[in-house]
């Protein structure tokens, strides 16, 4: 599936390249004939700018999709967590935006690298995000932060709800714990665990994802 998707992203980029060059050529032709009066020149140029912007947007999306497709190529590889989380947030951004939620990465300094299965790790992360989104009906922010701890690397995921009732946090944390029982196989494959993370300075929930280095 990864190979097929990667091939399709290549085709998408080719299509975008044709659109971009065609729009560029149209712009060139309009610029060459500037002395000739043409009523809609400015309007055309504006439309061409929009096409270029959208091509750029589409191209960035294709890059992210291509990267996601290739992450299934090798089961265990060295993964830079800051980069993976940034990429993952790009993939999930639209999903979150529909619920008025922003996804943010608080990167680890100077960065953490773990040997893991990036595809399955992203499956776990997306389940975590899905669970978090269910708790953020009023919108908010989900923060992802990689951190090293004794013998493991954690990805902390916490919520910053726009509105939250007092006493609601602990109830919701229990609910989050239940959501991950179906992911036991993936967790054991990765040597990972997902658990509610408590006692944090951050408001809202914390999900810790522990990984073997």
């Amino acid at each position, binding site marked *: 599936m990864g190979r097929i998707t990667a091939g399709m992203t290549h085709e998408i980029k080719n299509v975008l*390249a044709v659109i971009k060059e065609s729009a*560029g050529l149209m712009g060139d032709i309009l610029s060459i004939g500037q002395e000739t009066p043409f009523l809609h020149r400015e309007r055309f140029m504006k439309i061409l700018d929009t096409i270029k912007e959208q091509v750029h947007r589409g191209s960035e999306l294709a890059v992210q999709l291509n990267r996601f497709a290739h992450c299934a190529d090798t089961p265990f590889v060295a993964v830079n967590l800051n980069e993976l989380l940034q990429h993952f947030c790009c993939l999930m951004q639209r999903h979150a935006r529909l619920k008025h939620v922003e996804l943010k990465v608080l990167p680890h300094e100077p960065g953490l690298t773990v040997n893991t299965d990036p595809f399955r790790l992203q499956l776990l992360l997306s389940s975590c995000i899905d669970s978090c989104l269910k708790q953020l009906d009023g919108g908010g922010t989900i923060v992802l932060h990689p951190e090293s701890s004794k013998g493991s690397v954690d990805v902390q995921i916490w919520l910053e709800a726009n509105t939250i009732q007092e006493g609601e946090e602990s109830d919701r944390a229990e609910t989050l714990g239940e959501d991950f029982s179906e992911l036991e196989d993936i967790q054991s494959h990765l040597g990972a665990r997902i658990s509610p993370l408590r006692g944090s300075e951050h408001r809202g929930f914390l999900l810790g994802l522990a990984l073997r280095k």
Partner: protein
Amino acid sequence: MHEIKVLLIDDEVEFVSTLAERLQIRGIGATAVTSGAAALRRIEFVPPQVVVVDLMMPGLSGLDVLQALKERHPEIPVILLTGRGSTKEGIDGMRLGAFDYMMKPLKVEELIEKIEEAVKLSSKT
């Protein structure tokens, strides 16, 4: 300065012909072909100063064209184009002797800069 002769190779006919026209408008003598085999045949009779070739093509790939040129015409610099998100293929190409690689969609001005750099370098060697 005389017109730089560039051969563009890409199986996407709309892309390569439009790009050639845009380069021509900017004073570059660009010719477009849509296969590696056609490019290699043409180069024997009309050698360009720079070759710009897409990596992913049916038949002879961009890397095949690069390798053939390195054997027969090592003096012609080759710029690779890739539509892939990863830079791996481009880096592999540079290891095989490509002058540089660029990602699609391109910025035509950046391509011209790259072409001019390639011509400058090849004229020194």
